[in-house]
């Protein structure tokens, strides 16, 4: 099939009264993508997710799920969707098995395939040992997993996860991230979060939304190009005069962090790390640290979302 675009959102806007939560957003999701949806609190992430999943009407604009308009043909479009809202939609009085059975039924899985689908979902989310427990008695992490199991039970083409790792412990977070990566191989995944490393760890594309507007949309691999100047941190037990380092080719400026640690800024693509190490050895500066400052999503995020004019 040539049509590999799973979600297409065109000129999507949503108003709550006069307040514009999402403002004219356009984007696409392709098969095999794990798209990270980033933004500060209240940026419009959840509103966008709710519109994509057919829970909320867009004030204007259109959403196509696998080429099907979600407002015109909700039933067909929703069959391709798995959605985990911010708060997992769990009937807490049911057991894990009962709940997943019900989810399989309402997602129109054939009666003789329900057991297989439920077993598969439990298996993938590590719920096999909990299958007969009441959801109410499960820990937050396991409830979250039940929520994810619910979203993938009918192996939809698109999985939308709204802050899936909130409230989990570090080990569970790692497991969930691995699960998301795994899911990204066969499905298209949209993941909303405000945790930056999560996007770097799991996603291959990232979108940043701020005050309802899409301010950044690119592949995670291309992030480095977004950052104009880069820097290195060096530690020297016997630092020379700053000007001596500044004279080295490629280095544009230098800043003292502590007594023995310095940050060197350099121009495009020309890391002076090798040269620095060489000089340090020659001049007996006693080099003990040489770390490239990682191109950080955080920097882009802060740059893009905190563009308030400086107070004069």
């Amino acid at each position, binding site marked *: 099939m040539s049509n590999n675009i799973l979600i297409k959102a065109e000129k999507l806007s949503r108003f709550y009264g006069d307040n514009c939560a999402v403002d004219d957003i356009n984007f696409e999701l392709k098969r095999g993508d794990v798209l990270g949806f980033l933004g500060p609190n209240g940026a419009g992430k959840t509103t966008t997710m*709710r519109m994509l*999943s*057919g*829970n*909320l*009407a*867009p*004030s*204007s604009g259109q959403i196509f799920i696998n080429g099907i308009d979600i*407002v015109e043909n*909700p*039933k*067909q479009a*929703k*069959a391709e*969707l*798995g*959605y985990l*809202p*911010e*708060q997992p*939609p*769990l*009937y*807490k*009085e*049911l057991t894990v098995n*009962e709940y997943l059975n*019900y*989810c399989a*039924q*309402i*997602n*129109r899985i054939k009666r003789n395939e329900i057991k297989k689908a439920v077993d598969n979902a439990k298996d993938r989310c590590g719920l096999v040992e909990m299958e007969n427990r009441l959801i109410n008695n499960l820990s937050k992490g396991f409830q979250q997993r039940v929520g994810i199991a*619910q979203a993938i039970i009918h192996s939809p083409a698109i999985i939308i996860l709204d802050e899936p790792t909130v409230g989990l412990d570090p080990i569970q977070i790692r497991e969930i991230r691995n699960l998301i990566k795994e899911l990204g191989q066969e499905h298209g995944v949209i993941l909303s979060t405000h945790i930056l490393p999560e996007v770097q760890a799991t996603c291959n594309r990232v979108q940043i939304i701020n005050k309802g507007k899409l301010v950044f949309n690119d592949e995670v691999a291309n992030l480095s190009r977004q950052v104009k100047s880069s820097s290195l941190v060096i530690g020297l037990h016997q630092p020379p005069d700053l000007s001596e380092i500044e004279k080295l080719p490629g280095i544009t400026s230098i800043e003292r962090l502590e007594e023995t640690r310095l940050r060197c800024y350099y121009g495009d693509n020309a890391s002076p790390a090798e040269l620095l190490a060489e000089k340090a050895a020659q001049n007996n500066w006693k080099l003990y640290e040489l770390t490239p400052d990682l191109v950080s999503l955080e920097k882009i995020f802060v740059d893009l979302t905190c563009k308030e004019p400086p107070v004069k």
Partner: protein
Amino acid sequence: MIIFNIAMRELRSMFLSPLAWSILGVVQFILGYMFLTQIDTFMMVQPRLAGMEGAPGITDIIVAPLLGNAAIVLLLIVPLITMRLVSDERRSQTLSLLMSAPVSMTEIVIGKYLGVLGFLFIILIMIALMPLSLLIGGELDFGKFLSCLLGLALLLGGFAAVGLFMSTLTAQPTVAAVSTFGVLLLLWIIDWAAASGNGGTATVISYISMLRHYEPLLKGVFNSTDIAYYLLFITTFLVFSIRRLDSERLQH
């Protein structure tokens, strides 16, 4: 099929909480007491009835008043059953499970409605068992008895439809319960105004009253306009509920 699954889940969840059991218990206790007092009344008037020609039987003296009272008791109870239907799911944010599944709003609404009807049907059977116990020592007029039961069933169906609609309007179950109760009570007593008024308005107002259409059935008068009234009433509120849920998803 999906409608049935939704209905079953609804019914199941009701019985997994103590609410359903306590409602069944309390309703049965109150109506049981009323039933016994009706029997007492019957015992008192029985000697006098023996001499009368065309005297009312036990169906008229015991069953009809019992089901009449049951309607009042259930008017208080049904809002408590229907209040959670949608508003509770809204509040605990489980509604998005149904909203993002390939299920239409019509299926959701009808599924939930049938779930409540299932519960009300159980109450109806429990109530019917009391008059049936009279068969041990007497005879029932089954025509009248069934007409009474049909009336109560239709009435409960109407109550549930209003309750479901009110529940789609709010995220607070208690608000849903109070407004359902308000609407039902108003529809129940609206013909009081007709008693003092006159002319066309009074007729129309009294025609809306749910009680007006219940009383003939209790007397054993099967009139198709009464049946049509209830069916239209139920359909109207179900359509309102579907429209209400759909409005969240549609552009306007």
